[in-house]
């Protein structure tokens, strides 16, 4: 049994303690936004936020989640009425999504990057996203999107769009 806060809600999951978090999310909870690309920490498709910090869910075990605040891509939105997070909005507007497989991981890495550095240069964006592989885009529009999201989030200092449950 592991208890933690998932996308703002307390949950309790009956799962073996050595279950990989990516499997817990996808299989036990049906949250398939988090993807598995490699299972070895080499692609970033499984990126989630744990206590606001980007981590690879394929290299975490269920027991490690106890008491933590976890945000998956589903939680970035906060419900249909709440609208998209600025990072998601920018990714759509800038054409940063092609097949979409890397996109959830990219979005969460971007959220963590912008929390640490709200005004990153394009080089700093590339550094911040360097743990997330993309085969479709060549990264250019992803960098454009993070830059645009950063600009938008800086001009709304009271907080991001409603629905941002990322701590």
């Amino acid at each position, binding site marked *: 049994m592991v208890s933690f806060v998932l996308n703002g809600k307390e949950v309790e999951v009956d799962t073996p303690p050595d279950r990989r978090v990516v499997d817990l999310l996808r299989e036990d909870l049906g949250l398939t936004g988090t993807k598995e*690309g*490699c299972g*070895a920490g*080499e*692609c970033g498709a499984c990126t989630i936020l744990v206590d606001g910090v980007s981590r690879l869910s394929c290299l975490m075990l269920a027991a490690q989640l106890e008491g933590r605040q976890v945000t998956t891509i589903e939680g970035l939105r906060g419900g249909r009425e709440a609208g998209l997070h600025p990072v998601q909005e920018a990714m759509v507007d800038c*054409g940063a999504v*092609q097949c979409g497989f890397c996109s959830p991981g990219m979005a969460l890495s971007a959220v963590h990057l912008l929390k640490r550095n709200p005004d990153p240069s*394009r080089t700093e*964006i*590339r*550094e911040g*996203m*360097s*743990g*997330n*592989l*993309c*085969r*479709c*885009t*060549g*990264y*250019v*529009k*992803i*960098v454009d999107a993070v830059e645009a999201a950063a600009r938008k989030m800086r001009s709304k200092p009271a907080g991001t769009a409603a629905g941002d449950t990322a701590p």
Partner: protein
Amino acid sequence: MEVDELTGKIEVREYLAITEGGRVINPQGFEQQVQGAVAQGIGYALMEQVTLDKGEILNPNFANYLMPTSLDLPDIESLAVETVEPTGPFGMKGIGEVGTNAPLPAIAGAIEDALGVRLTQSPFTAGRVLSLLVPKGQE
């Protein structure tokens, strides 16, 4: 493109792709495809290789089959040369793959321009480039 003379590493600093794919219906889609294809082409030129030993693939995973990360690619600028292909739907030819063709020969040409020697075997790893810089026999 820059070559580091100490390590042989190549860095593509800027890339301009001028591509002709018939009529452009969705400019953003056109640019997406070209940028992605150029990225794949640069990977092909600099780091991608399926390593085989008696038919067994030695690098069947993301750890050892390397593709470019966001730090391995420049901003890729794309310009479309728009023509009309009469046999294509709405005058289009398609743009999904053609962008991968140019980066490898472009980089080979840039290496020749920088170092005066042409590499004829890809990927143009730092080791291969460094061997162009250091005459044989000298450590």
